[in-house]
């Protein structure tokens, strides 16, 4: 039964990775840019959520778990706005400047965001207010238990991912997004406002990242400013594992990475879990060079 327990824990962590990976993969889809600042936007979600919850609980001490809802919305909006701003200021001027310059710009934005967080909130570990997340566990037969928090996290994550998938596949805007990810110039000829679509991607990606930051911080209870790099790198790896630019791929990659990690930690050694995850990533890429669900890229001729 230990196996089922590990699987549930792995799925939960995987859901976090997926949510963050979606941000990487969507931006990559439309800009072919590895948005290295995404991890730090995600981390800002955790910090802003902390401030928001503290303020709200100070004003309305009896709000309890309901305080989370308005704070989530505020965090999502703020991080999404920052995301759009980053795109406007740091990425848009570099759209025609080759592949390397935007990467450096993204790394620069990551430095700024991380330094801001460290200076404003300090380098110490931050703890979320306790007693607002649902507690309790449900036995699943044998020793395996799933906590109510895990169910909530998984339900929310799957809901978000499902909604996003439908949005991209079924709506006009989603179709435009897929067109832009194929070719900017031809999309423009087809009457798509490419700048607007890219801005929308930078609303959705960082918005989801911000929410994910807050959920992760609520789930673990504490975090520090290194969250952006460490968690962001993992999520990026998840996106690559699934095939970057591919939305279901990011979801699948996140889940697989989460499960590999927890199984590795449980059955082999917690110290080696990251090494196991990286080695499996490398093996996957050797056999499937564009990730699990990535399409084969046609060679330019």
């Amino acid at each position, binding site marked *: 039964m230990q196996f089922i327990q590990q699987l549930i824990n792995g799925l939960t962590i995987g859901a976090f990775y997926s949510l963050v990976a979606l941000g990487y993969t969507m931006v*990559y889809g439309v800009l*072919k840019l*590895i948005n290295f600042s995404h991890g730090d936007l995600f981390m800002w979600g955790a910090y802003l959520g902390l401030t928001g919850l503290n303020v709200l609980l100070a004003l309305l001490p009896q709000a309890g778990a309901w305080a989370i809802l308005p704070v989530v919305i505020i965090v999502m909006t703020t991080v999404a706005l920052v995301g759009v701003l980053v795109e406007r*200021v*740091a990425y848009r*001027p*570099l759209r025609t*400047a*080759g*592949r*390397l*310059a*935007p*990467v*450096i*710009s993204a*790394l*620069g*934005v*990551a*430095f*700024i*965001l*991380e*330094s*801001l967080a*460290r*200076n404003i909130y300090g380098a110490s570990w931050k703890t979320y207010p306790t007693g607002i997340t649902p507690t309790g566990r449900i036995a699943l037969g044998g020793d395996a238990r799933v906590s109510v928090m895990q169910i909530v996290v998984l339900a929310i994550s799957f809901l978000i991912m499902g909604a996003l998938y439908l949005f991209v596949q079924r709506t006009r805007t989603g179709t435009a997004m897929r067109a832009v990810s194929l070719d900017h110039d031809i999309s423009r000829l087809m009457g798509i406002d490419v700048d607007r679509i890219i801005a929308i991607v930078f609303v959705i990606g960082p918005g989801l990242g911000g929410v994910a930051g807050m959920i992760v911080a609520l789930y673990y209870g504490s975090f520090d400013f290194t969250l952006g*790099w460490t968690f962001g*790198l993992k999520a*990026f*790896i998840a996106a*690559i594992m699934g095939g*970057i630019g591919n939305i279901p791929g990011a979801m699948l990659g996140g889940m697989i990475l989460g499960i590999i990690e927890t199984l590795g930690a449980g059955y082999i050694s917690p*110290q*080696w879990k*990251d*090494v196991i995850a*990286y*080695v499996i*990533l*490398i093996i996957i*890429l*050797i056999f499937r*060079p*564009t*990730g699990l669900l990535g399409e084969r*890229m046609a*060679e*330019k*001729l």
Partner: protein
Amino acid sequence: MENLLTRLRQVNPLRWQLGLIALAVLLPLPLGNYYRSVLWRTGLYIMLGLSLNIIVGYAGLFQLGHAAFYALGAYTAALLNLYLDVPLLLTLPASIIVAALFGYLITRPILHLQGDYLCIVTIAFGEVVRLVLVNNLFGITGGANGLSGIDRPALFGLDWRQPIYHYYLMLIFLVITIFIVQRLEHSRLGRAWMYVREDEVAAEAMGVDTTRVKLLAFVLGSGWAGLVGALYAGKITVISPDMSKFMESVIMFCIVVLGGTGSIPGIFVGTLGMITLPELFRPLKAWRDAWLGFAMVTMMILRPEGLWPSRRVRLEMRGAKEVSLPTPAMDD
């Protein structure tokens, strides 16, 4: 300004090269030990930048795990020195070979990956190296604390605790590095690298063995980073797995791109911006990273081709208008 630059180009290169070397020799003399160490560190990162430039600048391959090879070189030197008592300077060839060998082994199976996928594998490899060192595989790497008590180089009976001797040792290797890199750039292999960078399919069609050429870029670049790692171990005498941090690789990558990919003077400028200035502004430490990030974004927006790009890259990005070479008067 343009005229001055044109005229400077006509000066015999040997003359200003010797002048620069003389300047580098004299520069640390009036400075204190702290600034001498800063200069030494600058030189070290210039060498790292030059080695990474082979991979990123010439061959156009994404490498965000370069620090791993730097760390491997340092650990090779340290282990040989601590366990087998090999004098530090004699460990240098071993450091090069080990780093180059790992460069070969890790990139051989993944060379067919395209740009960003290659990039993530190099990141993953860097992290694997760091974690293996932290987890103390085989019980000889000292875990998270790393290794200490490494011998300094012993040569000519000098007092090697003085940073100045390390500076001159570094300078000798730096001059050798620049010489080799410059020769490589204009060699058949160098031209093949740039061909692969510009258009891999066309290069292959013209008979360039792209796999071999890319592999050579990784092997040479990694090996040279290993040498720098050993030099680092010889001065600091304490090394830790943090040498293979992702952040280190990011800094090396920024040095190459910020200065101008594929350009040797660009690496100098990049190192000045990423290493020397932040080091000198250490008192500002809390906000230093934010300023660095701000500078990186601004720089890329204003000069996406880097501060001192190679002519080829600049022409490619800015179009053919900005030819600054003295050209014979063309018909208008």
